[in-house]
């Protein structure tokens, strides 16, 4: 067993006077896929936003590689990829420009690699079309193209399968599994019935919270 | 005393209306703020008390029973 990348200890979050979860503890190890599950409104998205560092309204401890995350901010941000509900795609820009802008602050990537990634999500030939002319699913695919060139070891994916067609879903499942095999860690929330061998689960909204 | 009589005190050589208006407005606002703050404090305490007593009455029952969604259609007449 290797050491956990991200470790949550006694995480507690209260939102709008409502306790979403408390005493939530789990570890995310390299080489695993973890699914966060639970009915609507139990705090899946909030948990992911907390883990990504977008939401500060929590208490407890978050350890990044064994040290408090607040002291490792740069390293944490460099090594974590977060894809949210909102895909982060500018409707006025083309898929190529969008992808380039998203990668720009992280690491230098050649245009060739970017177009390969776009082709990998089935967007070959759409590189020069403004994203507002694409369908919702295609726009999501632009955001997902990042996964094909991402070197971040920790992926936090919120509702990745939204608006993606059946064959796309299968391909993404395979991608997640492959990523885990490479030694990456993946955390997903989804309502899609995701079943991967060796998948961990974090279940929210049951009164008590499971550890894994 | 800087004034010879009470009426001189009130008149303040013609500046009385200005001075007294200021003092009146000041007293009204400060007293009003104190009064409203105290009243709200009492209202919050009463509210808490009522809730706590109600909770003691209904303790033992699980108030937060969750109904699971069924997505059955509500009977609506469709003419």
């Amino acid at each position, binding site marked *: 067993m290797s050491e956990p990348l991200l470790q949550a200890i006694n995480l507690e979050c209260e939102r709008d006077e409502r306790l979403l979860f408390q005493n939530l503890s789990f570890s995310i190890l390299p080489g695993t896929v973890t699914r966060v599950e639970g009915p609507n409104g139990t705090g899946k998205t909030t948990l992911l936003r907390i883990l990504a560092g977008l939401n500060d309204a929590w208490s407890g401890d978050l350890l990044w590689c*064994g040290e408090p995350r607040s002291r490792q901010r740069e390293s944490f941000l460099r090594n974590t990829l977060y894809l949210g509900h909102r895909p982060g795609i500018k409707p006025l820009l083309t898929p190529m420009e969008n992808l380039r802008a998203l990668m720009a*602050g992280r690491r230098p990537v050649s245009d060739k690699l970017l177009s390969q990634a776009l082709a990998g999500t089935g967007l070959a030939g759409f590189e020069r079309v*403004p994203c507002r002319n694409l369908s919702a699913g295609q726009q999501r695919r632009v955001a997902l193209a990042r996964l094909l060139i991402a070197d971040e070891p920790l992926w936090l994916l919120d509702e990745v399968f939204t608006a993606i067609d059946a064959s796309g879903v299968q391909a993404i499942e395979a991608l997640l599994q492959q990523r885990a095999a490479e030694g990456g860690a993946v955390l997903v929330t989804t309502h899609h019935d995701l079943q991967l061998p060796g998948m961990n689960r974090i279940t929210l909204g049951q009164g008590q919270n499971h550890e894994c | 005393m800087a004034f010879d009589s009470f009426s001189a005190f009130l008149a303040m050589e013609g500046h009385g209306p200005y001075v007294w208006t200021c003092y009146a407005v000041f007293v009204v606002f400060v007293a009003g703020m104190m009064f409203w703050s105290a009243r709200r404090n009492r209202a919050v305490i009463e509210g808490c008390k009522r809730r706590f007593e109600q909770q003691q009455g209904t303790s033992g029952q699980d108030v937060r029973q969750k109904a699971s969604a069924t997505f059955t259609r509500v009977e609506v007449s469709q003419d």
Partner: protein
Amino acid sequence: MNAKVDAVLKPVETGVGPVQAMIAVFSRDVRVAFRQRQDLLNPLLFFVMVVTLFPLGVSPEVEFLRQSGAGILWVAALLSVLLSLDHLFRHDFDDGTLEQLVLQPQPLFLLVLAKTLAHWMLTGLPLVLLTPILGIMVHLEGNSIAILCLTLLIGTPVLSLIGAIGAALTLGLRSAGVLLSLLIIPLYIPVLIFGTGTVAAASEGAPVAGYLALMGAFLVLALTLAPFASAAALRISMSNS
């Protein structure tokens, strides 16, 4: 940090430098703005229209206009910047690019600074360029117009920088636009006073270098402090959504 995890982690240094990241943010904002040119024109049209209201609403006399022209132009410029500020973060917030901006492994205040500079280049700078024409229309003298343009050139970046704080604070709120004005207008007062005061001093023939230096000091102060406040406000607003 233990050795096993280190093998997986990418060291921060393999990434992109902050300056490159700033350039990327800046150029993306400029590019998006040029895809939607109408949005660029709106503050300018607003500027011209507000200035037009004064001769119509108060008096078209040359004497009045010459005396208050600089003030009118400054107020109008201030209002148009204010009007455009609501968009500074809103679109990015709605489509999720702001989340990705906050999560970049870069100092957030620098990225915010890049965004603010882009905003200034797209609204403040065109206003300055338009000012000579409007200055002639309100019968300002050549020297006054030049000084007015100079004060606007120094002043409008301050407006953008301070305004970014308000835009970040009111992000995602109902009636954010009105609230933004309420929060920001009091903070604009010193810039307005010195901007118009400098022009007034120039028209009386007084030396203005000192005033301009003071406005420059405002700009430096805003440049160094405002991005930190905007970045902090941005994090708070992200956390709230």
